[in-house]
Structure formats: C-alpha cells, structure tokens
C-alpha cells in the first residue's frame, strides 16, 4: 500500500519538487511543521493585516483597541485611492499604466538579454569567457543604490531622461540574472547540443529550441526576481524622471504615504495601494512557482 502511493501521486502532481523521502510523516516532522506553522503565521501577520486594512471602512480604521480583522469589508479605500488624484494633473491610473508597461517590458528584456549572454558563457569557450564570468561574479555585489549620482549623469548625458527607455534600460544590466542562467545552463549536457549541431541546427536554433526550453526554470526564476525588483523600484522615477506623468505607481505611493507615520489620514487608501503593489508580485510568484519547482527537481536528478 505504502509503496504504491508515491506512484499514484506522481501522476497527479507531475511538477513535484523531489521524490518523497517519507511516505508517512514522522513524529519529529509533525512537531516541526507545527512550530513552523506558527512562525509562518507570524511572518504573514503583516500581510494578513494589510489585506484586512485595505478592506476596512473608514469607521473601522481607527477604532480602539485596534482589530486586525475587518468586520464590514468594503472597497471604498480602492475608490478613494483613485479619487484622491482625480483633480490633479496625473491620475493614479496613469502611474499604474506606467508601472505595468515598464515592469513587463523591462522584465522581458532582462530575461532575453541575460539568457543570450549566459548561453555562450556556459557553452562556448570563446576568448575572454572566463574573464567576463569573473567580472559578472564581482558585479553580483554591485548595489545600484550606491551609484545613483553617476547613473544619473550617464542617463542624462544619453538624453533619455523622461522616457520609458530610462525606466527600462538601467534594469537590463542584471549580473544576477546572467549568473543564475549560466549556472543552470551548465547542467545542460554538451552532447545534446553537439547532436543538434551535427543534425544541422544553427547556433541560434540550438539556443532557442534546446537550451531555452531546458532552462525554463532559470528563466522563470530570473523573471520573478526581476519583476519583483522592477515593480517596486522607485529609483528610476526619482532619478531620471522630472515629468510627473512618467513616474511609476510606487513613486506615487511614496508621495501618498509621506508623513503617514504622523498622521491618520489616507491610511485606508495607502493600505489599498500597498495591496495593489503586493498582489501582482504574489501572483507572478504563484504562477512561476510550479515552474521553479519543476526545474529544481530536474536539476536534482543529475
């Protein structure tokens, strides 16, 4: 009975992390799961709260003692969020549009550019490959936040201030993505590529048809990471945009929450906006999570 179970499950969950190590839970595991469950709830508490806060009507936001859970859920905070900016020149929807556009295009470009770079790094021994990889490893520790001033100088001298280019291009140079992809591609057997080349496949076809499908987990992982970073980034809005209509949603959020610590106004709207910021990232993670898990199982077989 017990031996038959994993086989049955494999069909139900083809994208599983790893082969089950234990058919039944051991006592220690139950205890562990129990305590980790409470720790997990503790970690999630602020998120649980923001869900509820965003749905609270005005009367419930400031009651004493504070109550985490909402009693009469309402969407009024979301409408307030968009009403707040109705009279100003730039509506909140514009910021949201900017953010969505930038996040999609920037994430796509990072993934494509990184994959293109990772492939020869991993599979071709071209002159300078090792040096380039060393450079990438060193620049893993690059912290864009420290280089704001020269980046500002560079972008302004490129003449792309106040354009979408200035939002997207600075994100494209992502050593972390190249590094992750290269490490994943190292696991693709060389024989596979050589066989394809003998069959007459060109370099680009090999990359697109063989390497990329195998490396989908790496693609998914880098996509998650980059989307997460870009979606929440205010750096490009603060540094490279002077035109308000070109700024992004998180930047708008920051202006909305300025002095939120001292005042009680607009807490509901801010919570709603926080939810708008958080949900897409959570959604993207949930969508890609299975892919990540599938690839990780893949890399574990080797």
């Amino acid at each position, binding site marked *: 009975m017990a031996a038959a179970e994993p086989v049955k499950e494999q069909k139900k969950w083809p994208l599983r992390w790893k082969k089950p190590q234990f058919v039944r839970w051991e006592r220690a595991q139950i205890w562990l799961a129990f305590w980790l469950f409470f720790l997990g709830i503790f970690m999630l508490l602020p998120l649980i709260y923001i869900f509820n806060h965003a749905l609270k009507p005005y009367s419930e936001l400031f009651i004493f003692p504070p109550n985490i859970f909402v009693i009469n859920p309402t969407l009024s905070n979301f409408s307030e969020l968009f009403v707040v900016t109705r009279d100003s020149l730039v509506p909140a929807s514009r910021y949201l549009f900017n953010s969505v556009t930038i996040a999609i295009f920037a994430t796509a470009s990072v993934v494509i550019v990184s994959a293109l770079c990772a492939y020869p790094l991993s599979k071709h021994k071209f002159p300078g490959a090792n040096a380039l990889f060393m450079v990438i490893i060193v620049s893993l520790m690059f912290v864009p936040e420290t280089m704001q001033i020269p980046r500002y100088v560079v972008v302004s001298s490129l003449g792309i201030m106040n354009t979408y280019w200035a939002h997207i291009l600075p994100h494209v140079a992502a050593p972390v993505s190249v590094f992750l992809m290269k490490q994943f591609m190292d696991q693709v057997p060389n024989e596979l590529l050589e066989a394809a080349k003998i069959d007459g496949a060109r370099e680009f076809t090999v990359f697109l048809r063989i390497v990329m499908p195998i490396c989908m987990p790496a693609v998914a992982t880098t996509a998650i990471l980059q989307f997460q970073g870009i979606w929440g980034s205010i750096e490009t809005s603060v540094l490279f945009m002077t035109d308000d209509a070109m700024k992004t949603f998180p930047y708008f959020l920051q202006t909305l929450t300025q002095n939120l610590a001292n005042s009680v106004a607009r807490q509901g709207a801010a919570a709603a906006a*926080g939810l708008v910021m958080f949900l897409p990232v959570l959604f993207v993670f949930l969508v890609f999570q299975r892919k990540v898990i599938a690839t990780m199982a893949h890399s574990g077989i080797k």
Partner: protein
Amino acid sequence: MSAIDYKTQTIKGSLRTKGRFGLFIQEVWKYRLSYLFIAPFLIAFSIFILVPVLAAIGLSFTFFNGMETPRWIGWANYEYLLSSDSIFLQYALPNTIKFAVIVGPGGYIASFILAWLIAQIPDKARLWYVLAFYAPSLAGGVAMSIIWIPMLSGDRIGYLNSFLLGLNFIDEPKLWVLDKDLIMGSMIAVTLWSSMGIGFLAMLAGILNVDKQLIEAGRLDGIRSRLQEVWHITIPVMKPQMLFAAVMAIVGAFKAGNIGVQLSGQNPTPQYAGNLLVNHVEDYGLIRFEMGYASAVSVVLLIIIFFANRLSWKLFGTKGDE
C-alpha cells in the same frame, strides 16, 4: 604538390606573418557569434554599471555641482569626508555598519536555518511553508513601509503598541519610528522580516539537492546527529549556494537606505538616527547637488561592500578545495 599540402602551407605562412595577435584575432573571429550573443548584455553592463563605477571614482576627486564642468580637487573630498563630515562619522557610517552587521549575517543565518527546517517537511506541505516565508520579501520597498507603518504607529492604535500595552510590557505608547533610540531597531526588524528572499530560495534548493546517498554514506562513516550531518555534509556540498546567498545578503544589507525614511516619513530620519550611507549619498547628490562629494561617499560604500564580500568569499570559497 597536392591541393591539401598547398593549403596547409599557406595557412602556416599566414600564421608566421600574422603572429600571435593574428592568431588571437582568428580565434575571436571563429567565435564571432558568441560575441554577438553577449553583446546586448555587455553594452548595457558597460553603460549602466561599468561607466557609473568608473565615473564615480573619477568624480570623487572633483568638485561637481551638476551644471559646471567638474573641477579637479584631488583628495579633498575624501579628506573632508574622513575628518570633518560629522554626519558621516557620527551617524551614517556607524549606523550603516550596525545595520549591515545585524541584517546581513542575521538574515543569512535565519535564512539557512529556516531553509533547512523547511527542507525536513514532506514536500506537499513544504510548498506552503516556502510561500509563507518567502512572501514578505515580495513586499519590498514602498509596500513594505505601508504594511509596517500602522503596525509601528506611535499612538495606542498602533498594533504593536496596543499589543504590548495589553500585555503590560510597556506603560505608554512608544514612538517606534520617530524616536531616535527606537528607529534603528524598527528598521532592522522590518528588514529582517523581509530578508528570506532569493538567498533563502537558493539555500533551500541547495539543501534539497544534497544527494541522499551521501548522507547515508556519512551515517555509515560515523555521523551521529543531524547537526553533524549539516556541518560535515550539507554545508560543504551546498557551498556554491551558500556563497551566492551570502553575496545576496550583503547586497540586501547595504542597498537598504530608504527604509528609515519611508518608515518615519521624515528625510533625514529623526536626529539622523536611521541615516545610512545610501541616504548620505542621496543627501549630497540629489538635494545639495554636491555630486563630486556624493561620489566620494559612494566609493567609500563600494569599498566597504567589496571587503564584506571578500570576507564571505574567504568563508565559503576556500573550503571548496577540501
């Protein structure tokens, strides 16, 4: 003379005339497609990482206000920074070191322990645990401060205050993000909360990929406890992931700059208590427009980050030869 002989002779002849450089060029030409593949990244990398770093080093020796051409002033920026800039010496530097030392290694160790614990849970349930611990890191930046502001709100409506008051731990509401003695603690707590990010996932993957046979072999060789197993098998085997996670932890610890400003809603933070080096760079570069000086601060920060990385490389790089 056959055609083949003739061909090899001409190749040899051309090699002699071209010499070493010619050989190199030939080799490069052979791989031209590879270079085409890496070109987009290389261009972006040069423009947005390499040039800024070099520009920062160059500008740090100049007086530059963003409008006039930079004027060379030698080491003056560094001399002022390291001798007379009281905000840097009293607040930004000590704060950054304190913040990074707690958030970096602290978050790193917590990530490892949690990753290891989660790896022990059977896999169907594991997914949900991963999500629970990874989710906070998804709420980065502004969203994070919005989530925490009402939690740490200074009046009795603030959740933390209300909770502690209810337990009689404190007598009156504390100003978690506005009091100069408390803001640093709040910043550290919030950042730690969201530090189970990419490094955590990398370590989890590393732990899960440790070969079961290796552990069984270790048991036969006399490994008695799970702790020994972690120390002698798991960590050495997953050293690459450990190093990667360490680098990510360092980056995370030093890039945090806005968290204090966002939590307190004040720039600079109350009495500079939450002022980090990144804030100092912004202060001089974007508010006072002393970009030369701001660049000098950036370079100092870069050097600190570099040495922090060297340390983690020593910890997890050398043991790899064992």
